[in-house]
């Protein structure tokens, strides 16, 4: 229904948008470059959140960046049959999902390396990393059963 102004999109990654992180957002993408999922841990109350400078649970400013375990569960998902943004036309159908992390927060991401028709709420997933231009970002793939 609405579009985004070009200035918010950043550089072009083969037609797909590439984020331009600012400030504390860089921790998220820096961690991804190292193969990790960054969370903010509050030293005052222990609550983990997604890249904040103030703990959203107790509002302490005494926070640090930690690595998440890298696992999660599909909380909800949708299969896009029409590209949600320019650049994704060749990817349809693809999955956008909310992953619930064992540390608490939920993150929006793609579920990759599987048939979109196989994705289910409750599915166990693990962290994988994709890179577009120079920006790395987290995605998730089904946990392989041994």
């Amino acid at each position, binding site marked *: *229904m*609405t*579009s*985004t*102004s*070009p200035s*918010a*999109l*950043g550089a072009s990654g083969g037609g*797909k*948008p*590439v*984020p*331009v*992180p*600012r400030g504390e*957002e860089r921790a*998220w993408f820096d961690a991804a470059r190292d193969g990790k999922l960054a969370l903010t841990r509050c030293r005052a109350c222990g609550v983990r959140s*997604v*890249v904040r400078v103030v703990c959203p649970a107790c509002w302490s400013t005494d926070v640090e960046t930690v690595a998440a375990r890298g696992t999660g569960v599909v*909380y*909800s*998902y*949708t*299969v*896009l*049959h*029409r*590209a*949600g*943004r320019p*650049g*994704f036309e060749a*990817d349809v159908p*693809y999955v*956008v*999902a*909310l992953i619930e992390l064992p540390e608490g927060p*939920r*993150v*929006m*991401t*793609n579920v990759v390396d599987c048939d979109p028709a196989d994705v289910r*709420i409750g599915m166990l997933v693990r962290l994988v990393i*994709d890179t*577009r231009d120079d*920006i790395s*970002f987290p*995605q998730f793939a089904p946990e392989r059963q041994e």
Partner: protein
Amino acid sequence: MSTLEQIAIVGVAESDHGRAPHLSPLGMMAQATARAAEDAGISVGEIDGAFVITPYHHLTSLSFCETLQIFPRYHDTTQIGGCTFIAFLRHAAAAIAAGMCEVAVIAYGSTQRSDAGKLVSATEIPTLELPYGASYPISSFAMIAQRHMHEHGTTPEQLAEVAVAHRHWASLTDDAFYREPITVEDVLASPMISSPIHRLDCCAVTDGGGAVIVATRDRARHLRRSVSVLGAAEGYSHRSVSAMADLTVSAAATTGPAAFAEAGVTPADIDVLQLYDAFTIAPIMMLEDLGFCEKGEGGPIYASGRTRPGGDLPINTNGGGLSYCHPGMLSIFLLIEAVRQVRGECGTRQVPDVELALVHGLGGVFAGAATAILARC
């Protein structure tokens, strides 16, 4: 006297809508305001409070007021999404009760249909969500619907019933954008956009504007037809769907009870509802969150036909955003239709003997929320 008891809705009007390439967003706001003033029996020049927002204008109120050459002493350009115009009712009441203004206009205009394919909004996507190709706002509503189906047994057929029911109402509405009746099968056969949302689960994309004039009770007594606001509330639960604590519960669960408590009435007292139907899941969840039924019963209510013309729970009596008109931010149209139903001027789609109307809007991806309960003065 409470804040809301000091004000009344004294005039409402829409601009030309549907396809209106002859009007700009400001032109629509101006046309609707002039028509609403005519409806109220006042002069546009008496307006001394402006409550306006669009996705087009950085300085919305200044652009709007300049167009009409009015010089209000109070401005409010709150932006909590498509429900903002319902929230403005409460803001205007507060400003009027505080003596900041006496005659407030709430106005909106959008050329979303005529803009097709062009940039129409400054909506930003959170940096962390940008890489994933989600469709905004469709994919967020899709994940809400998916979770609701998982937890509460709502079915694609029940979602489709919402589009079917609202189209029934639109078929009674001369100026509705889509008037041809549709079936559940039509909805399910329409292209899948972002599962489980099909094309016909989505609102229309139209041009349109509207205006609502709110004034002091003293002035309202001298005006032709007035409608009271018995209760009103606003709230929010998140900005991005990733921060929505429970995907099956919206902030309507807060604003609904607050509005009912202020009005001193219950859901059973409401004669007609206008609910923000951006996607078919929305009014189902709103019925549940506002207290009209338990979780999981919203879909079955729609499937029962109770919300259609002649039913005992009439919802979106002009066809709503799904069929009547949806120019980006719907709630100005929900308000206008609620007022018209209370005033009893809706012709073939008029619900008999309306004393109480509820209007509820969402903002963003089921993020903002505003509820109002209207009554005859």
